[in-house]
Every structure is written in structure tokens, then in C-alpha cells.
């Protein structure tokens, strides 16, 4: 239909932009992570020798703590988010009238679009040291600057994003479930809870895995939420990358942390995708 050269012309702007703004910067990031950093400089010298020191540094307990805080808070928050989003999605699909279902879905979509700054500020205003919860905390002898409480607030901030993302993903997969399966299980004498356990949940596993993937990768790459709500006490890998840039101008170390973050994201995507395909194959054979 079209001469190959003309097709090539169409590819040109995209290819040029991706080369200049994505591929080359990623290569630059990889190279910088292997350069030796001299304190006091902004970034590594262009002819700095290559080293693995920037990565070796990350094995120290000080950094490991950030790494595990990011994973732990993200994982716990994602699991709590799914536990909330699943019944929410199920009720929206099955028990809401079509009018209320449309309103609920529209509301969730609006919430996803709502600025991250707004959501984060709203949580800080409500749960932070100036909010209505602070006096209650003081009454039970807790400080709003208690690090466990700060971790809880960061989790609450992440949930403002995870609940709508996970609920909308699950609404899609629950809509594809045949409600007659639950009814069939019930008519065969299984109680409601048992029919859900044997039909709804196993059939929703694909949806749950997709929701987990989206929520967990969102959480581990979160930036604004831990930066504002973490108050410097709870920091994620993203915040470390930014601090390496803004506070000490140690670009090589920031680059090494960036690559570690990237590997964590890719590993998560790989593992969950493997699980999904393994399940699909098992079902295909069974």
C-alpha cells in the first residue's frame, strides 16, 4: 500500500525523539553509574575511571534499610489495597444499580486523574501533625512524628492511588465473570461464602495479579508521597535518587540507585507475568 521509504519517513520523528530522550539518556545513566565520584564535584568527571564502587556502596546497611523500607511499605500497602479494592469492585459490579455503578466508576476514574499533589496534600492535612487526627494521637500518648505513624501515613497516601487503580482493574475482570457460576454453586447447596471461595476468587486471580502488578510498581516508584508524607523519616528509593542529585550532586551514586530501582521494577513485572502465563497454561492443559 505504501512504499517502504515513505513508511520510514513516518517512523523518523518518533525514532529520533526516543533515541535522544530515552535511549541515549539511559545509556548515559548506565555509564555514569560506573564512574568514580570525587566529592565536591557536580557529577563524575568526564574522564573519571570506571569502578563498581557506586554499587558496592549500596550493600552497606545504611542503604539496605532504604531498599527494604521501600519494598516492605510498598508490599504491605499493595496487599491492604487489594483487600479493600476487591470487595469494593465486587460490590460495584454486582450490587450497585447501573446508575450508581456509573457514578462510582466515574468517581474512581476522576480520582486517578486527580493531581498527585492534591491527594498528598489532602492526606497531610487530614492525618498530619496539624490535622484532626493529631489531637487523638496525643490523647493516646502517640506523637505524629513517631516513625511507625509516619510509615502508616505514607501507606495511607499510597492507598489514595492504589485503591482506585486496583478497583478499576478488578471491576474489569469481575465484569467478565459469569454470575451464574456463583448461583450454580449456591443452588448446589454451597453457602455464599463458600461459593465465592470456590468460584469468584480463583476466577479473579488473573485480575488480582494485574492489579497487584500495577499497584506494586506504582508504589515502589512513588516519589511525591514519600517525599511529602515521609518527612525525611521514611524515604523511598526515588527520594534517595533525588537527594543524591540535589543535596550532594553525587550523580554516579544516584545513577547506581536508579539502575537498582529499574531492576526491581523489571523483576516484579517479569515474575508476575510469568505467574500469569503459567496459570494460563495450566488452565489450558487442565
Amino acid at each position, binding site marked *: 500500500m*505504501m512504499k517502504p521509504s*515513505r*513508511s520510514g519517513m*513516518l*517512523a523518523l*520523528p*518518533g525514532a529520533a*525523539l*526516543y533515541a535522544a*530522550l*530515552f535511549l*541515549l*539518556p539511559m545509556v548515559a*545513566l548506565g555509564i*555514569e553509574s560506573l564512574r568514580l565520584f570525587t566529592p565536591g564535584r557536580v*557529577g563524575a568527571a568526564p574522564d573519571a575511571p570506571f569502578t563498581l564502587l557506586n554499587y558496592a556502596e549500596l550493600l552497606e546497611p545504611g542503604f539496605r534499610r532504604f531498599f527494604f523500607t521501600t519494598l516492605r511499605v510498598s508490599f504491605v500497602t499493595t496487599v491492604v489495597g487489594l483487600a*479493600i479494592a476487591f*470487595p*469494593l469492585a465486587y460490590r*460495584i459490579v454486582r450490587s450497585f444499580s447501573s446508575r450508581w455503578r456509573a457514578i462510582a466508576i*466515574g468517581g474512581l476514574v*476522576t480520582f*486517578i*486523574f*486527580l*493531581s*498527585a*499533589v*492534591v*491527594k498528598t*496534600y*489532602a*492526606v497531610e*492535612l*487530614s492525618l498530619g501533625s*496539624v*490535622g*484532626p487526627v493529631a489531637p487523638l494521637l496525643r490523647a493516646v500518648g502517640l506523637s505524629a512524628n513517631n516513625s511507625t505513624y509516619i510509615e502508616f501515613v505514607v501507606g495511607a497516601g499510597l492507598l*489514595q492511588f492504589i*485503591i*482506585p*487503580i486496583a*478497583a478499576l482493574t478488578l471491576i474489569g475482570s469481575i465484569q467478565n465473570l459469569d454470575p451464574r457460576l456463583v448461583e450454580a454453586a449456591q443452588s*448446589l*447447596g454451597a453457602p455464599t*461464602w463458600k461459593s465465592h471461595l470456590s468460584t469468584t476468587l480463583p476466577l479473579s486471580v488473573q485480575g488480582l495479579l494485574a492489579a497487584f502488578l*500495577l499497584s506494586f*510498581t506504582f508504589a515502589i*516508584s512513588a*516519589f511525591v508521597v514519600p517525599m*511529602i508524607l515521609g518527612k525525611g523519616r521514611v524515604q523511598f528509593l526515588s527520594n534517595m*535518587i*533525588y537527594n543524591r*542529585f540535589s543535596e550532594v550532586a553525587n550523580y554516579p551514586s544516584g*545513577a547506581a540507585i*536508579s539502575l537498582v*530501582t*529499574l531492576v526491581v*521494577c523489571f523483576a516484579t*513485572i517479569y515474575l508476575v507475568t510469568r505467574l500469569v502465563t503459567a496459570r494460563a497454561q495450566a488452565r489450558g492443559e487442565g
Partner: protein
Amino acid sequence: MSAGLSPSRPWRRRLDGMLSGISGAVVVLAFLFLLVPLGITGLMAFDSRSYLGPLPPPSFSLQWFERFLSDPYLMQGLRTSLMVSTTAVLIAAAAGVATALFLNRVSPRWSELLTAFFVSPLIVPPVVIGFALLLFLSQVGIVEGFVRLVCGHLILTIPYTIRATLASLAGVDRTLLEAASSLGANERRVFWEITFPLARTGIVAGAIFAFAISMDDVAVSMFLTDATSYTLPVALVSNMRANFDLTIAAASMLLVLFTILLIVVLDRLVGVDRVMGQGLHPA
């Protein structure tokens, strides 16, 4: 299994009742959890006190809105945001349409592989993209803040415009294109008279979506700002860290209005369902 045959046992009924009670409670609590903080922000935005006091405000005023709209630092951020996002989205939309047309033409095997490549920036954490761009742009000597921001917002938005265009092109009936070219129309005419008008709504919706993503970005922009070129979200975040006053509550309420407007427009254009499908899934 045999136990399942007697549904009338009272403990089991109670368990069923509990299940529906719990899920009902979760629904109510989830909506409260999402909406109460926003409600508190809305209430505080109209606070007439000049300091941040406990809830509820004793009386209401519009002072925080006035302060926001007359704050030179934040207004400069808003202007930069609008300029950066508009520039980036216009370029991203044009490049996205060209790229999607290309992807639509190559063999399915290549198309699948290349599409995966073109949407891959979406699975890279934005902070990593911002930091990588900062390194690279410094190395090649691009130091102008506005140009840097546009570069960052371009790579942030192109994946969305490519994907939205691909989705709308999939809806264009190929037989129409073949009919037009067999009647003698050249490629250019086929595109402007058939393909583009049919795919236009989807392309525009994709661009609006990309604009929303761009206007909201903090993680990429943080690395690319300078003293005079900074975006509104970056300005709001640094205000939030410096002094926690209610100007941001007023700004938040205006951003809520902006978001609702955007959703209504997108819903009219393509329907909220499709917006959802495009926005959620990075790959």
C-alpha cells in the same frame, strides 16, 4: 462437600450475613477514606483565619483563593506549566500520530515488538527518566530550563499519544482506505480525507489525556527546573515542604475542578471506559 448440602444451618447463614456485612462496610469505609481528606481540604480552603487552625473553620472567606491567584511564584509556575505542557503535547501528538501510522503499516510481528518498545518508558519510574535526562542533557550542553522541561514532558507523553492513536486507527475500516486509493486518491489525500477524520476523536482524547499527565508531573520536572523555569506542581511541592499554609488547599480545589472538567470532556469525546483502559495499563 456433604456439609454443603444443608444450607439452612444457622452458623453458616450467619457467616454469609457477616460476609456481606463486611464487604458493605469495606465499600463505605473505602469511599470515606478517599473522600474525607478531600472534603477536609475543601473545608479548609475556605477558612477565614489567617493561620492553620483546627477544624472546623469558624467562618468562611475566599482569602486563600485570592492569595493563590496573586502569588507571583505560583502564578509563574502555572504559566510555565501551561506553556511546557502545551508545547510538549502538540509535538507528542504529531510525532505520536506519525509513529502510530508507521506501526500500523509494518508486519504484525514487527509492529508488536516496536509497540512494546514505544510504550516502554511507561514502565520506567519517572524519577529514573528525569535523572537520566538531566545527566544526558547536561552532557550535550542543553541547560535552558524551558527546553529541558519540554524534553522531559515529551518522553512522558509520547507513549500515551502513540497508544491512543493506535487504538483509534484500529477502529478505522481498512476497506474505506482501499476504496479511496482504488478510486485514485494518493496517500496524503487518503490520510487527510479518510483516516484522520475517522481517528480524530481518539487522537484528541489521547492528547487531552497526555496533557493531564504532563500538568501533574513532579518526578521528571524536579530534575529539569531552574530558578525561573519551574512547573506549578513543582512549585506547590516546594511550598508544601517549606511552609504548610492553606494556599495549597485553595489551589487543590481549583485542580479538583480542572480534573472534573477534564473527565467530563473525555467522557463526552470517547467515554470514561476507554479513558480508563488507556490510562491504567502501562504495557
